[in-house]
């Protein structure tokens, strides 16, 4: 089920687009220009076909039953795990299926809460929080990597602190060095912000966290679809990503963990498929990853996600990154030229293809509506990062984000349309 990555070959987005049926449609008579891949990516035929093929030919519940279909489904399901784990540099047993990044982060937060209550295996005590212990996040997090930690802090008496962000979008590493201290037990942060697009300095933050013995949790949602990713090499203890943002189906994602971390972590959801021995009054749990996979699993989605990462691997993540860097530069350079446009966090930095901005005098919702009338799909609002928007004095912004299938022509269509927004709404000269 593996494929050999083609690296260092420039990709041809026009050829790739043929693989994505939806990119051929039009909106209100205009060809669709899809610049909202940071919200969810479009799916290649290989992914759609993989799900359909499984449901057509092998569908059965996995890890139970002795019939042929059950055996075939289980094999495909576990092959999918190995494929997706390999995509992020991990071993199969280091990858837990979740319904997505939000579920993965909640799994970790609740598992730590359970460890705090004395549940789990004997080694789980290493995660137990005491009142006054500190959980550190950053000011730029998606709500999914903020709210679960707020709740964990409230349940355990831990204190939630944050690493601030500079006006230019870079995390304040000087502040990080003082915020992360001897009471710090968890440092949770994003690899790439879904608003800024900047690739954050993971090794530096991991070094600060590990220097005080804290657990690191990485949100890799916006990096996994766009960069070559090797989670063990990044040195993080735990990481999450969402399948639907990386060409895969909805309802599937991954939680990666270092082997010793996953082995010591108590379960969150409990029930069928995650046990070794169940009595009426007590239960013993399976080792990872099954310990964290209670109940019927999203099998066709896992197989679809494996097809997605095979597709990405075949294109080559180096080529994807290089192509999106090209798009990102054109996007950002073009936006800087348009009167009344203010980019959020415009530091020179390594980025993915993403830019969020404010249009002076026109609300983000109105900008999005105008662009939609020309077939251009962007995201408007706070992008589930309200604290970051508050930091920039905004309640909402417009975000254009790319994927491997976008062309420079599409970026130009978007930039041209944007120049007409303020005149349409009668703002500016």
């Amino acid at each position: 089920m593996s494929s050999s990555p083609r690296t260092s070959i420039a990709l041809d987005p026009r050829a790739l687009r043929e693989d994505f049926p939806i990119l051929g449609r039009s909106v209100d008579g205009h060809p669709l220009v899809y610049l909202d891949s940071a919200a969810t990516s479009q799916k290649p035929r290989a992914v759609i076909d993989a799900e359909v093929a499984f449901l057509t030919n092998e569908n059965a519940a996995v890890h139970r039953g002795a019939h042929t279909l059950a055996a075939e489904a289980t094999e495909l399901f576990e092959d999918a795990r190995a494929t997706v784990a390999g995509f992020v540099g991990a071993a199969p047993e280091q990858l837990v299926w979740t319904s997505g990044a939000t579920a993965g982060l909640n799994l970790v937060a609740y598992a730590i809460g359970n460890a705090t209550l004395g549940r789990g295996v004997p080694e789980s005590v290493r995660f137990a929080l005491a009142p006054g212990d500190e959980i550190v996040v950053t000011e730029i997090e998606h709500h999914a990597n903020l709210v679960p930690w707020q709740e964990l802090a409230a349940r355990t008496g831990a204190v939630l602190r944050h690493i601030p962000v500079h006006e230019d979008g870079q995390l304040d590493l000087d502040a990080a060095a003082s915020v992360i201290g001897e009471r710090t037990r968890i440092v949770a942060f994003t690899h790439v912000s879904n608003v800024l697009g900047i690739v954050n300095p993971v090794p530096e933050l991991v070094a600060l966290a590990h220097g005080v013995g804290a657990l690191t949790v990485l949100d890799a949602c916006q990096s996994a679809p766009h960069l070559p990713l090797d989670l063990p090499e990044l040195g993080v203890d735990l990481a999450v990503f969402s399948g639907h943002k990386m060409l895969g189906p909805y309802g599937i994602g991954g939680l990666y963990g270092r082997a010793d971390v996953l082995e010591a972590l108590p379960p969150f959801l409990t029930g069928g498929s995650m046990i070794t021995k169940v009595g009426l009054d007590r239960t013993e749990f399976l080792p990872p990853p099954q310990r964290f996979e209670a109940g019927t699993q999203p099998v066709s989605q896992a197989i679809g996600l494996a097809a997605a990462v095979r597709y990405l691997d075949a294109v080559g993540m180096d080529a994807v990154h290089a192509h999106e860097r090209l798009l990102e530069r054109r996007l950002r350079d073009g936006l800087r030229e348009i009167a009344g446009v203010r980019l959020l966090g415009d530091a020179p930095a390594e980025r993915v293809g993403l830019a969020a901005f404010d249009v002076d005098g026109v609300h983000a919702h109105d900008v999005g509506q105008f662009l939609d009338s020309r077939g251009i799909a962007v995201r408007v609002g706070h992008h589930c990062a309200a604290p970051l928007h508050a930091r920039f004095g905004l309640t909402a912004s417009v975000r254009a984000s790319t994927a491997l299938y976008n062309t420079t022509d599409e970026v130009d269509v978007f930039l041209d349309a944007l120049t007409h927004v303020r005149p349409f709404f009668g703002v500016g000269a």
Partner: protein
Amino acid sequence: MSGLESLYQELILEHSKRPHGKGIAEPEGAAATSHQRNPICGDEITLQVRMNADDTVRDVTWDGAGCSISQASASMLAVLVDDREGGMPRAEATALIDGFRTSLRSRGTIPIDEETYGDAEALSGVSKYTARVKCAMLAWVAFEDALARAS
């Protein structure tokens, strides 16, 4: 008229640029406020109703930030109430809110009547854009809530 122009009629752009009733009046007599927020886009409004002694609505004033549709809608509501000589009876206000909601949720099948709604008729086009219905409703939901609070 293109789709975009039927949504953003001139009246809407006018009201959003020069909104009526923006800036909350001194609370005199029976007055109540409501704060409403659209969690999707972060738009928010604080709206106050002031009541006359006979329990009719004296005026509506508001403050908030949001898209042109939400700002225009709040402004049009303020004008509608203002134009009712001698105050708007509570029952009429409730009926107006219900009718407005019904039109906006009709996916373009029930237009907003100009006779009854004045400038707010221009918001008829919003009902075809389901993602924008909440923008247009925000002030009216605040009005409904404030009315319920005003004894």
